[in-house]
């Protein structure tokens, strides 16, 4: 047997019972090889040294310590007990669960309400725009600081409408091409009554028996009140804002546009405080003539372009409604 082979099984020879034929071969080799014999000797010494290592005994109090540790509940159950004491059983979790549910419901309701409020702003059909503030066409860009007083709201709305009007002029309606018509609504000769600081009335431009009186929406009076409240103590008609009667007329026209399934694209500034600013609206051509009939109840219509304008039934009509006083 060669040295390499003998050394490979020397550990097993020293430690376990190897088959007899191998044992004889190893022993024959060890008898002639001093190196392998020394190695075996070292292994045996090592085994003896390990076997005779002192057996370390457990301390005398070992049993008592094990017993006392066993009597203690496990860490996990101790933790559970502490938690249950801390949270007074299930009640804490019930209250916490109810609170979490309440918060969730409130948050959901908040989101839903905000969502519906957003839609209301976008859709005039659901909630009529107040008289005195131009109708919104598109949702105004969110401003970081929301205006608080009525004049501020008006200024903000005007800015938004001007922006929208510019965009509407630049951007044609997608799909069907809109045909444009411009008309002037000549209102009866009397100017609207304007409240003075002392509660009196300024000379009227519009008679009380105006045909528009019957067409007022329920919200118009409310908005009038809002206007008077907002400007209490000062002149009721601020510079550049139309008088309440003019606002009422504008409100009526807007409602007519809505009834004709149209939408107001922009409301121009009022040059004359007794008259509303020019309204730009878009509506289906099918409702155009019905809209004109309703408009005639307010006053005489004067077309700027082709009077015999008859749009295609599936087209859209963009109508610019100006206001003037009939002489």
């Amino acid at each position, binding site marked *: 047997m060669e040295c*390499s082979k003998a*050394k*490979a099984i*020397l*550990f*097993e020879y020293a*430690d*376990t019972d190897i088959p007899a034929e191998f044992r004889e071969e190893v022993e024959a080799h060890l008898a002639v090889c001093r*190196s392998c014999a*020394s*190695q075996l*000797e*070292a*292994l045996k*010494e*090592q*085994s003896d*040294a*390990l*076997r005779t*290592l*002192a*057996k*370390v*005994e*457990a*301390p005398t109090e*070992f*049993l008592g*310590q*094990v*017993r006392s*540790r*066993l009597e203690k509940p*496990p860490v996990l159950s101790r933790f559970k007990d502490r938690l249950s004491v801390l949270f007074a059983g299930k009640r804490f979790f019930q209250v916490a669960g109810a609170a979490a549910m309440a918060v969730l419901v409130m948050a959901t309701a908040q989101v839903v309400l905000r969502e519906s409020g957003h839609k209301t702003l976008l859709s005039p059909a659901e909630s009529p725009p107040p008289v005195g503030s131009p109708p919104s066409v598109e949702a105004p860009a969110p401003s970081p600081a929301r205006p608080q007083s009525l004049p501020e709201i008006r200024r903000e709305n005007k800015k938004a409408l001007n922006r929208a009007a510019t965009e509407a002029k630049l951007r044609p309606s997608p799909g069907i091409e809109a045909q444009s018509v411009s008309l002037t609504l000549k209102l009866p000769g009397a100017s609207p009554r304007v409240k003075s600081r002392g509660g009196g009335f300024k000379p009227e431009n519009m008679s009380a028996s105006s045909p528009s009186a019957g067409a007022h929406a329920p919200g118009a009076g409310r908005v009038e009140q809002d206007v008077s409240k907002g400007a209490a103590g000062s002149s009721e008609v601020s510079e550049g804002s139309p008088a309440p009667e003019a606002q009422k007329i504008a409100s009526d026209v807007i409602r007519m546009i809505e009834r004709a399934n149209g939408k107001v694209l922009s409301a121009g500034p009022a040059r004359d405080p007794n008259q509303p600013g020019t309204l730009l609206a878009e509506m289906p051509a099918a409702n155009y003539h019905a809209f004109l009939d309703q408009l005639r109840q307010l006053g005489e219509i004067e077309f700027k372009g082709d009077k015999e304008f008859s749009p295609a039934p599936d087209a859209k009509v963009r109508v610019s409604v100006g206001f003037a006083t009939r002489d």
Partner: protein
Amino acid sequence: MAKEEDRTDIADFLSGDRTALDRLVLRHKDRVFNLCYRLLGDYSEAEECAQETFIKVFRGLKGFRFESSFSTWLYTIAVNLCRNRRKSAEHRFWKRVLRFGQNSQEKERPEDFEIEDPAPSPLVRMTEKEKEIMLQSAIDSLSHDHRTVIILRHVEELSYEEISRITGYNPGTLKSKLARARLLLQKRLQGAKDR
């Protein structure tokens, strides 16, 4: 004989006899403690680990199926607890500080079963106390796997079959690991003597 006693005591313990616990602990505590001490090389840690072994065993005694002997089960738990303890950050720190006779350049060659220096073992000329300190330090310097097999085989004198059950190694792997462990131990002892 001990196996039968263990079986009886376990049955008694499970039926509510608290003295059966005492008997089991007293029968096995010294061997478990010695194993923990040799694996960890620290008296207080060995005490903690041995206690933990018994706690774990008695808490899981209901699930014991007698597929192996009670002592084998005890040893398995003790070996695992000692390994986990040595893995802890604190122990890694002490191991770094107190590493004995281990050259970082030294690499284990898996196929090398030769003792390069067949000079007489340094253990021959030492007193018992010196021998024990040197041996324990050399054992501590081995990896957990090598330390475990060498202690179970040559200190606790368990059979290959029992060691296989405790460590999960098949007999071939076990023999190979044991041979490697003894070779490394011899080198560490030689290195300690030369310093």
